[in-house]
């Protein structure tokens, strides 16, 4: 009798501990969002969005340009690789190596990507510290994410559709182009949005490849110009530049978080709506 009671008590204690774990994880997130929203949003003013020093306009524009270019570079490479893995590969050592490589690329520290970008794009290709070098570096960083989300989207297309197309005398590529890709496209786009959302928040890869801090000439004139971006702006204002008003820093942090979380939210909503409207 005693032993049974004790086991049940142990369970109650353990489960309380698990609930505590959940709470410990949830509360800080809520705290972060609340604090940033409260101190950041209230610090936003038209001044900050519009002109004036430390205006957020240039970093926002820079971030948009950077992630757009990153997406343009990463998308064809990543989707093509996903098509290979999903439609053309046939198991065996090569595919295992490719997947191992993807896992490793996903695990490379972001600052190491920065080093690689520096050595290859900035120095060897002579792009210099530029929008282009930064986008190339970030494209590499998000490539594993693009590949895995695209591959999942492709695999969702049922095999019966591929068989129907092949049985009508279509070639493998025609089947991919006319049946598989169009049906996987919404899922692929969702993955792309997630990927550039990730890219928007990254700092280390662009520390030496693209970002700079300037009060006088914040907008790039070409692909080979350096740019202001939100994460680097926040970093520099917090650690290097003296005499920046706290309000400005909080507003920058808030806008950055809002953009990144906003893009993730868009992707999540898209994904949920996709599941609902599946046509097969």
């Amino acid at each position, binding site marked *: 009798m005693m032993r049974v009671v004790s086991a049940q008590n142990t369970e109650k204690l353990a*489960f309380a501990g*698990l609930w505590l774990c959940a709470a410990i994880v949830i509360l800080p997130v809520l705290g972060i969002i609340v604090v940033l929203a409260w101190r950041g949003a209230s610090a936003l003013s038209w001044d900050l969005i519009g002109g004036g020093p430390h205006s957020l306009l240039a970093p926002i524009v820079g971030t948009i340009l950077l992630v757009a270019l990153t997406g343009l570079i990463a998308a064809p490479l990543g989707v093509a690789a996903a098509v290979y893995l999903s439609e053309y590969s046939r198991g065996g050592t090569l595919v295992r190596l*490719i997947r191992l*490589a993807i896992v490793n690329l996903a695990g490379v520290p972001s600052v*190491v990507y920065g080093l690689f970008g520096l050595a290859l794009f900035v120095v060897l290709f002579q792009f210099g510290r530029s929008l282009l070098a930064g986008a190339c570096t970030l494209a590499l960083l998000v490539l594993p994410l693009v590949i895995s989300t695209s591959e999942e989207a492709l695999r969702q297309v049922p095999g019966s559709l591929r068989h129907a197309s092949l049985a009508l005398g279509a070639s493998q590529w025609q089947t991919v182009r006319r049946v598989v890709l169009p049906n996987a496209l919404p899922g692929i786009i969702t993955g792309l949005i997630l990927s550039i959302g990730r890219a928007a928040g990254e700092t280390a890869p662009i520390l030496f490849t693209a970002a700079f801090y300037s009060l006088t000439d914040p907008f790039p004139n070409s692909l080979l110009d350096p740019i202001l971006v939100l994460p680097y702006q926040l970093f520099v204002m917090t*650690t290097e530049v003296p005499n920046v008003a706290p309000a400005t820093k909080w507003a920058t942090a808030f806008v950055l978080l809002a953009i990144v979380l906003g893009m993730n939210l868009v992707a999540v909503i898209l994904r949920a709506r996709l599941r609902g409207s599946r046509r097969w």
Partner: protein
Amino acid sequence: MRSSIARAWEWLIESAIRLAGVLAIIFVLLIFAFLLRDALPTFAEQTPLSGLLGGHEWRPTSEPAQFGMLPLILGSLYVTVGALVIAVPLGLGCAIFVAEIAPPWMREILKPTVEVLAAIPSVVYGFLGLLMIGPWLADVFGLPIGQFAALGSLLLAFMAIPTIVSISEDALRNVPVALRDSSLALGATRWQTIVRVIVPAARSGLIAASLLGLARAIGETMTVLMVTGNAPVMPRALLGFLRPIRTMTATIAAEMGEAAHGSSHYHALFAIGLVLFVITFLINTVADVVVRRAGGVQT
């Protein structure tokens, strides 16, 4: 009709697709090659190797420059181990919670929360740590400065938890229902079932989850750069957790801006990058092998 032009075009496209497939391998090799190329001069200059990896002094700007990486390696170690001490129990706890006992409404709250945790940019974590959490903790614990190793560990833990939770949860879900049912049918409580049957059965997935969390923590840059202070010195036992420190990643980020291209300092920073790359490569490969051995939890 399939003309020969159409066929040639199709062959071209399919070749491009095959090439894209092996891109991942090419890029991994390229990264390694470029890191090695720019790190090599350091290995040539600083002999023996133990002097580089084991040297106690990291003074790149003094005359003569000293490139002992040990303080940085230890710095990374302290921060990472501290992070895992917090993240693994919490992450595992959350995973067990979600997989085994959470009511549906709670699951609907916890899963998005974890995704948000993962999405918060590291510079934002650093910002909050530097401006708010660090000073507050220094106040409460009477520390000399609001930037110290344990603060980095705390923030890193929350950045690693999403990785640990999602992979652990997958591993737990993959345990066959039959195992769970047999244990319950034998009169075990749910908790006993979890501890004695489910967790051991999911063991390799859980280990892989922790390894990947480890890799995530070691590779983090901006947060540790901003909150762990700027002191590339040897940490002193447990007290080191409460004092400023420098990780490998933060060193690269902090000093690359000042290292002249092609100088010894420049090469030394690449050497650190190479060490980082090799460490994370090993961890990721081991984690992958562990998962494969167990029969495949998708990472």
